[in-house]
């Protein structure tokens, strides 16, 4: 570190803004799906359908339920990507 500190040190010192009390909402002119969609889950790095099924249903073998509900965005059940929003059918 130099006498006046590096650029990175200055970056680290800058406090992050606090957004913990942000309130959000929304609405649409489009109707909601006729069949309740259940909840959704955004795929994280390292996730697999089995892991998600284990977390959501308590049983990794229930992964086909998630796969079937998301056939429109999942072509290969062994290949899901971080950032994908999956529909999780009700338990």
């Amino acid at each position, binding site marked *: 570190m130099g006498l006046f500190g590096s650029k990175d040190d200055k970056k680290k010192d800058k406090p*992050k*803004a606090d*957004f913990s*009390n*942000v*309130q*959000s*909402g*929304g*609405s*649409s*002119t*489009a*109707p*909601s*799906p*006729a*069949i309740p*969609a259940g909840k*959704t889950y*955004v*795929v994280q790095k390292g996730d697999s359908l089995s892991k998600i099924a284990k977390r959501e249903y308590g049983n990794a073998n229930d992964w086909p339920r998630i796969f079937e509900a998301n056939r*429109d*965005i999942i072509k290969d059940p062994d290949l899901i990507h971080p*950032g*994908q*929003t999956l*529909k999780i059918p009700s338990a």
Partner: protein
Amino acid sequence: MPFANRVLIPLLCIGLAVGAAACAKKAAETPSTTPAQLSVTGLDLGRSVGGDKRVTEKVSDFRPHDVIYASVLTSGASPNAVLRARWTFGDGQLVSESEQTIAPSGDAATEFHVSKPDGWPVGKYKVEVFLNGTPAQSKDFEVK
């Protein structure tokens, strides 16, 4: 060739040809009756929305105590689609993220809004909209 065969065989051939043409026409017409695939056609920011869920006045600069609205315009139909709005501050700090599940049959508008009771920090912000997990549109704005 007996008379019956001389008359019946050509008639049968004509019938098959007409039937095949009808099938081909029906197949060609099918795409035009399929509803257009859902897509995001616009993203507007403002301080309020009307009953049609569109912003009443488009702005890109906000004040610290504003409620910030993002109106997402979509076209096409889907029985089940997820719109997600992701709000970030500065170099990417997450502010808020929310979703709306919709089943539009044509043009539609979906609004997302965020507020902060103690006021927004001044600076640059961004809202990104995802359709079924795929980035669709984004817009930068500023709080002054």
